[in-house]
């Protein structure tokens, strides 16, 4: 895919990616151009209550050929995401009206395990960043940041997201489609709650390998550490009851004293 994000003769309206010129040279600039060349068609949601900053980021990302939506409060952002609009990346401020950034991540993460989330914050405390990562953020950038760094991180997140986890996972006659949030077994549609879907998503990504209760607790509930609750077992039973109907070959297996495994026979 070739996207001319900017040109060296200055005729393009997209100078953001050419910041390198200011400090290096035109060869570096060409590298930057190629680096930002796979952005077309990717939809990004910016949730930032500072209208000036949101407008600036939006303009510069659009100049890179991203499709950008801007929302100024957490509640409206949640509604936009839950409405079914397929975003490739969520960039959000933590200090948001109506629903703060941390709560937004918590609400969105279980039902959108593949959606990369980048947090923008003016708070520099390590504990704040750690909390954001534990809550489900994939990246964290402290204000005042450089646009060049933001663009590079956006690229990295999108690359990681598109390369590491495929949209579809299949084991036996069980299929999970992440973008469509659909699960089917042998033509039978399986209705799962967001939490159940997140569990099955983790299990499918680790198909053929035992997954510990602690891993499920960390990845699905964002509760790292030794599990002292049976919540994983309870939800795993819900998933098992829906995936393995009587008469079907069992795909979900209990690994005694450890966790669960998804495999054929």
């Amino acid at each position, binding site marked *: 895919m070739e996207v001319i994000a900017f040109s*060296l*003769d*200055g*005729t*393009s*309206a997209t*100078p*953001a990616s*050419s*910041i390198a*010129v*200011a400090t290096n040279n035109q060869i570096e600039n060409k590298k930057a151009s190629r680096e930002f060349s796979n952005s077309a068609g990717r939809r990004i949601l910016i949730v930032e*209550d*500072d209208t*000036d*900053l949101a407008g*600036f980021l939006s303009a*510069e990302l659009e100049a890179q050929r991203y499709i950008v939506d801007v929302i100024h*409060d957490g509640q409206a952002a949640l509604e936009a995401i839950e409405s079914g609009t397929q975003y490739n990346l969520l960039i959000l401020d*933590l*200090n*948001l*009206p*109506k629903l*703060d*950034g*941390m709560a937004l991540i918590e609400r969105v993460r279980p039902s959108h395990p593949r959606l990369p989330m980048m947090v923008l914050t*003016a*708070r520099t*405390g390590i*504990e*704040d960043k750690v909390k954001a990562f534990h809550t489900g953020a994939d990246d964290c950038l402290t*204000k*005042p*940041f*450089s*646009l*060049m760094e933001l663009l590079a991180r956006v690229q990295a997140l999108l690359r990681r997201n598109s390369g590491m986890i495929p949209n579809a996972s299949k084991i036996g006659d069980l299929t999970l489609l992440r973008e469509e949030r659909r699960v089917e077994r042998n033509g039978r549609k399986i209705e799962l709650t967001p939490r159940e879907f997140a569990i099955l998503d983790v299990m499918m990504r680790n198909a053929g390998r035992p997954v510990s209760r602690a891993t499920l607790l960390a990845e699905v509930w964002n509760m790292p550490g030794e599990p002292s609750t049976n919540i994983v077992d309870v939800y795993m039973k819900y998933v098992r009851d829906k995936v393995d109907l009587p008469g079907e070959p069992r795909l979900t297996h209990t690994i005694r004293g450890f966790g669960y495994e998804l495999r054929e026979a």
Partner: protein
Amino acid sequence: MSFVKPSYTAEESTPMASLREQHERFCAEVAEGLHALAQPLTILRSAIALLAVAKENGGDCARYVELSARQIDRTCKLFASVQGLVASSTVPAEPEPIDIESLLARMVTNRSHTLDEVGIGLAAAAMKSPATAFGDPQRTEQALSAAFETAVSVSSAGDVVKVDSSVSDGFLEFSFESTSKRDNNLKSSDRLNLSLAKANILSQQGRYEFTAEPFRISLALPVHEPEEIESETLFCTACTD
């Protein structure tokens, strides 16, 4: 640490707050100011670099010049607010008789044209009982301006900002209201302005009140009694002679 925006439901001056509480509030207010400053600085940091690139490539410099100028102006205003906030708790006020009515009239006149352009109405009532307040002129002007700008900031086209004044119980009160029906979510710069207005007024024995619904900020300073003016005048005359 919570990231939820502070709730601005209703607030009154609390002169009995402990030193520790005052210190914690002061730190939170300064942090709010720094948070507000981070927004324009983020834009500036990038816009300056983009401007350099555009200049070298013969690109569109005007956009980034205009953008940078606006953000520098914003940064300077926020910086002045943080500076005012710090000064109000570290430097003693220097009270003197102030003609607030003229000060406020000038403020309103200067802003009326820009408000008219964006469709925000302005209703400034004439002073019902002219009186002179006793306060620090610089602090008072900064407090009034901060309150006025906050009322403007929460308003949008079709809303009306009302400025009123009255005298009661030895205090000259100025109120700034907005008919805005927007929900109770203030921008960080608005929260900083409220903190500034409050700190500046309380630091000179004034009164501060805020309610979010309806949006109303009230600032009051002690009235300067005419007898005091006369006695001061006489004293000065005697000294001159």
